[in-house]
């Protein structure tokens, strides 16, 4: 758990309230947090910061979450970073589309901050193996 404390999480969401809420709670939970508002920023931040995990909202303006995930998973320098997809689209097929794009996990909004932290920790543990 100590290794997880201080892990860098990139939170990607175009909706400021949600993005900042998750960021604030992750910081409150002991993580370092970086933020991106769209796909392009997400790709740029991931490449420069090399975060330990990316929380990716899929519905984004410009390059959307699926596209950004595909780009990052195709990049040798970023493909090892686990990506947890976040979506308000509860329709069937949404999670399937996310996995196809390369997401490692999938969380449906609304997602309470507590639940999100639990999922982040789980994914980091998986990564550490």
């Amino acid at each position, binding site marked *: 758990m100590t290794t997880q404390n201080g892990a860098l999480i990139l939170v990607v969401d175009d*909706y400021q*309230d*949600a993005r900042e*809420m*998750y960021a*604030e*709670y992750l910081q*409150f939970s002991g993580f370092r947090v970086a933020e991106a508002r769209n796909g392009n920023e997400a790709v740029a931040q991931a490449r420069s910061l090399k975060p330990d995990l990316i929380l990716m909202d899929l*519905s984004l303006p410009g390059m959307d979450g699926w596209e950004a995930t595909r780009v990052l998973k195709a990049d040798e320098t970023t493909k090892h970073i686990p990506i947890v997809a976040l979506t*308000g*689209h*509860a*329709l*069937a*097929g949404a999670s399937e589309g996310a996995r196809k794009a390369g997401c490692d996990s999938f969380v449906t*909004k*609304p*997602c*309470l*901050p*507590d639940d999100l932290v639990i999922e982040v920790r789980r994914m980091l543990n998986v990564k550490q193996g």
Partner: protein
Amino acid sequence: MRSISRATAPLATAAARLELLEYFLVHYEDLPRCAQASLEWLVRHAGVRRCVCLAIDGEAGQIVGVAGVGVTPDDVERYAAALTHIHDPLVRALTAPAPTTLRSGRENGHARYPGFSGANVLAVPLRGDDHDEDADAVGLLLLKTGTSVTGDVNWLVTVLGQKFDQIRGRGSLTEELRKLRRERALFFTIINSVTDPIMLTDTEGRLIVANSRAEKLFAATEEESEGRRRAVELNNMLFSAALSRTAVEAPSEARELLLVDPSDGSDLLFEVLSTTVEDPREGTGIVSVLRNITDLRRATEQIEENYQKLRIAEAAVRAERDRLNLIIDSVADPILVTDQSGATVLMNAPAEELFTVGAEAPPTAQRTVQSNDAHFSSFISGLLLGESGPGEIRRGEIGLMNPVSSETIPVEAIAGKVLTETGELTAVVTILHDRREALERTRLYEQLRAASDELQMRVQSATAELATQNELLRRQAIELEQASRLKSQFLANMSHEFRTPLNAILGYTHMLLQGVAGDLPANIRRQLTRIDSNGRHLLTIINEILDITRIEAGKMPMQISEFNLNELVPEVMAELDPVISRSKLTVTSRPASAPPTMVSDRQKVKQVIVNLLSNALKFTHQGGIEISVDYDGGAQLASIAVRDTGIGIAPEHHDKIFEDFRQVDDSPSRQYGGTGLGLAICRRLASALGGRITLQSNLGEGSTFTLTIPAEAPQ
């Protein structure tokens, strides 16, 4: 009477007179015979019934009776008077110039004139020379007085007188010879002039006298050819044989005799009539007359042959006609055969119904038959007049009428000529075909076709309308589908848009309650808890709307798997355990005794049970809830019943509660929470699983919701 018969007595014909003269010639020496023949002739030809002939016997110097008819021979012999008794009435009558009437009377007990029954007698003198009234008579003819002395009597008196004179006063021998030769020549002339062979033979068949025809058959001289002689010899043998047979079998009957013609050897057939004659001097002879019947026989045979042929032909014709009659009578159509004059010679029974009528039939029927006849005659008149060529068939329509029913019968008439080999018209055969049936059939067919056409038109217009309706429906369906899809899409988008702010609300509330902002006073914590619970309720509503949308949009596909229904119930109870614990109700389950292996969508079944149990918990305040599982193996239907002891539902609300966003109490101030979408979703899920949800409930009596689904869900 008598005078009438005398007056009408006909003169003897010349032939009869000649016959007597011929007899005189034959019996030229026999005075009594000639006299007897003469008297018999008188009886036959002059109406005399009784007479006696007397002649002068020069040697005895007497006048004596020689012949008589109507009297006995004895009476004749009693007549005898000496010529010397010149006062004797008979002697006196001899010398009288005219016939003398002798008075009757009796002498010596006997009638003076025997045979005349005491009547007066007319004595007619017979003279040798008729014209010399002074000459002495040679005999007397005694007739009953009153006998009409006709021309025939006078003729006989003359010829018999001459004959007596001839016989009595025969002159010199030379005169006799000359006379004989003349008579012989006359005799031969007569018999030779007869075309049939005539001959007199002895009883052995040897020729005595023959006419030239007979000689050709039966006589041959040495100079004649061998063949002819043999033929004659053969004929003589055949004739002798025939004669002997005739004598034995039937003397007077005609017999057939086959002889040979000596001139050419051909067969000749004769009919032989033989009569035996007795001659005091020549003895018994046979007179035979042969009649050549060869041609007659041939003709007869020919006639018989022809007759036979005719009979056979007639029978054949009759058979043919019978067969023809059978044939034409068996034809249902009327048939008439008309000869060249237009007369009907043959008609079958159907034709008779139209063209014949009994005499007792009413006048209308008679007129109908006449009218039919006129129509028919005018139809065939063209054929009879030869207007059409040979072999031509004439067709036409005639309007006839049934004489009995007066029903109009339109007939098609077909007439053909019957011609002889030489092309001569002998008959016209006409067949009349009743067209009523055909016309009726045509009429029915037209009706049927009209009806069929109308039906077809109706079907077409109906089909067209149907197509229009279908097209409209199809468009409406497309529009509805589009609308439904748009609605689902809209709701999906809306729920997403709802979730995003709700996510933040719930998140921050949660963070505050988690103490991100440090410890909170109790009243703020309570207020935050209110925000949190209302936010969660809103989220449930949004999720349920989303579920319905997904089901309707077909975006909730069936996930078929095998599972045990008995295991599903405890699972649901465990999931709802926190709620059950809070409710203080007794919740029990009763599994199926023989649980089926379900092949269905486990998640959906579970969702329905969760929903039903949630509802039961929500609307039950005391008592308990029982979940029971049953399986009907026959119908292969599984059922899960959730029975509660809750508030119950009035029957009039049973349908209503399955509608979207409905509770029994719809008022804003309603007592129970929830979206009112739970049962609506359950109903849709049950339908998707191939089953249904039923409700048994009454107000205040609790409710039983039962999910019934097939063990194997439809694909």
